[in-house]
């Protein structure tokens, strides 16, 4: 775990723009990097790479199962393929391919799922992905990363290039504020403590961390001091960091733009149940599929806003002593 002081009022940068540019930068450095696209390059921003390094960009068409298999073949002949499509299609349409020719042989393929979570630009439930973290996290050997902002994404992609494990990178569509300072050093498996408070611990991943920080500010206004632990690597989980925050606060709220089943909330619950039973609430999608609607309305209906996180914290504190409550 490292402690990081988040930037206040950071610039709004779309993660997908940063992703495309990072690929170009890394591609310039690593001649082994190739990019595979499933006919979505102008949505995912792989088109930036296609323009800059066309000989290493491979359009695979609308054929995701083949695309993941082609990536496996590339990996066996010395390339590091970065595959990109929407998270919903990556994690489900091509799942058996990922299992058999990538995860089982442990091939170095970087699987990028863009448009994850419920904020997918009014595309509706077919394009919404609320199970991808759960799917990848339970596959033996697959590293699962969900960065919070463009700056952390840059560090994550660099770290991935220096790591040879199959990895899932969870990306989002819409702009969000940069919360990480320029000198932040991302490491796979390392959680970042963004706020240190003793009353309650909020553990979050991906862009939901931005709302977790807002929730902590709202709680502070009421005199409740929250720790905020951002967990960009859901697997391998930074167990020590999770346990340390639970030790310190005695009450944990997890927050993610993903199902409460099997994602970060599930991972933290499993971890704490074994290492330090702690009272918990999970903020996330409650076992339903989404719909197409404006972002604010979606966050409200599916209870992912900062207010919902803060309310869950208050409810948990108000619920009094239970398992693992502080003396």
């Amino acid at each position, binding site marked *: 775990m490292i402690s990081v002081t988040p930037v206040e009022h950071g610039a709004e940068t779309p993660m997908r723009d940063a992703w495309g540019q990072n690929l170009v930068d890394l591609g310039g450095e690593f001649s082994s990097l*190739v990019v595979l696209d499933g006919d979505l390059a102008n949505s995912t921003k792989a088109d930036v790479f296609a323009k800059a390094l066309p*000989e*290493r960009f*491979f359009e*695979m*068409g609308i*054929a995701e*199962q*083949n*695309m*993941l*298999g*082609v*990536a*496996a*073949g*590339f*990996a*066996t*002949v*010395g*390339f590091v*393929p970065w595959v990109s499509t929407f998270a919903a299609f990556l994690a489900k349409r091509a799942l*058996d*391919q990922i*299992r*058999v*020719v990538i995860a*089982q*042989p*442990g091939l170095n393929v970087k699987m990028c799922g863009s448009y994850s979570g419920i904020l997918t630009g009014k595309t509706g439930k077919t394009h919404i992905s609320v199970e991808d973290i759960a799917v990848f996290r339970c596959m033996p050997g697959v590293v699962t990363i969900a960065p919070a902002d463009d700056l952390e994404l840059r560090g994550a992609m660099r770290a991935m290039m220096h790591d040879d494990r199959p990895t899932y990178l969870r990306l989002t569509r819409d702009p969000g504020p940069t919360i990480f300072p320029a000198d932040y050093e991302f490491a796979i498996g390392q959680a970042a403590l963004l706020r240190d408070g003793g009353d309650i611990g909020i553990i979050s991943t991906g862009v939901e961390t931005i709302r977790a920080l807002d929730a902590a500010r709202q709680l502070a206004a009421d005199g409740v001091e929250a720790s905020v632990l951002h967990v960009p690597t859901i697997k391998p989980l930074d167990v020590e960091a999770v346990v340390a925050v639970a030790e310190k606060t005695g009450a944990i709220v997890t927050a993610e733009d993903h199902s409460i089943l099997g994602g970060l909330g599930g991972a933290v619950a499993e971890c704490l149940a074994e290492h330090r039973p702690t009272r918990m609430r999970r903020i996330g999608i409650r076992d339903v599929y989404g719909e197409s609607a404006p972002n604010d309305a979606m966050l409200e209906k599916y209870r992912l806003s900062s207010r919902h996180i803060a309310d869950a914290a208050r409810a948990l504190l108000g619920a009094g002593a239970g398992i693992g409550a502080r003396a």
Partner: protein
Amino acid sequence: MTDTSTRSAAQRMSSEELARISMRARRLILQSIHDAGAGHIGGPLSVTDILVTLYFDTMNIRPDEPDWPGRDRCILSKGHSSIALYTVLALRGYFPVAEFATFDQLNSRLQGHPDMSKLPGLDMSTGSLGQGLSPGLGMGLGGRLKGEDFHTWVILGDGEIQEGQIWEAAFVAARYNLANVTAILDANGLPQFGWPHPAGYTRETPYDDPAAKFRAFGWHVVECDGHDHADLQRAFAASKAERSKPTCVVAHTVKGKGVSFMEGNYLWHAQVPADDDLTRAFAELRIEGEAQ
């Protein structure tokens, strides 16, 4: 640097020599499945001559250096025929034949379906049908990008090509003019259970005229007798000579080839031979001039 692994045309194996190796391979296949008490029979016997021709004649490989980057790749997409591939690899010197005693046992390198993370010499893990052609494309695209001239051979079952992913890959391979990839179709007309024939207890072939279908997808197609080593050599050479398109070699085969009571009988897809089945089969699989 001289390349000791590449045979010049004059040194190529005669089809008679290849036939003798195939005979030995078939005996080993039956023995191994009998001893392990599990595994497939029909598919391995049908693909034996294809594998023997590839590994003993066509492919540019170094058995003592299985990871040699310049090697030709071979993906047995119909991974349930693993025992045929293991047999040919062992006979070719990749690992000792004695290792067959471990087939399907705990911690063995010889898994029920080929596991590239266990056994050197396997270019891809397979077993979930329909998946092998796509990694072959990745190898072909990667080889071309690196400027290397190795060839990638992918062996498909004719039941297997019912999987949609095969046609995704067929489409993309043609788009990229992947002439350094060859798909070899083990066209034995029988999958596992198959399509019932309206007339009774026989089975219908899963795919009608696969050659026409690959041609329609933009592939160069060569048909051959998948049990005639000379014909296989000719088809593989024609495939390497094609410079602008991927090739599909439609190898017409017989499921269970070499053992009369197994041939064309779908029940031998994955049946374990009993002791007397083995005796009867060995009586048919004789190598002339050799004590049995």
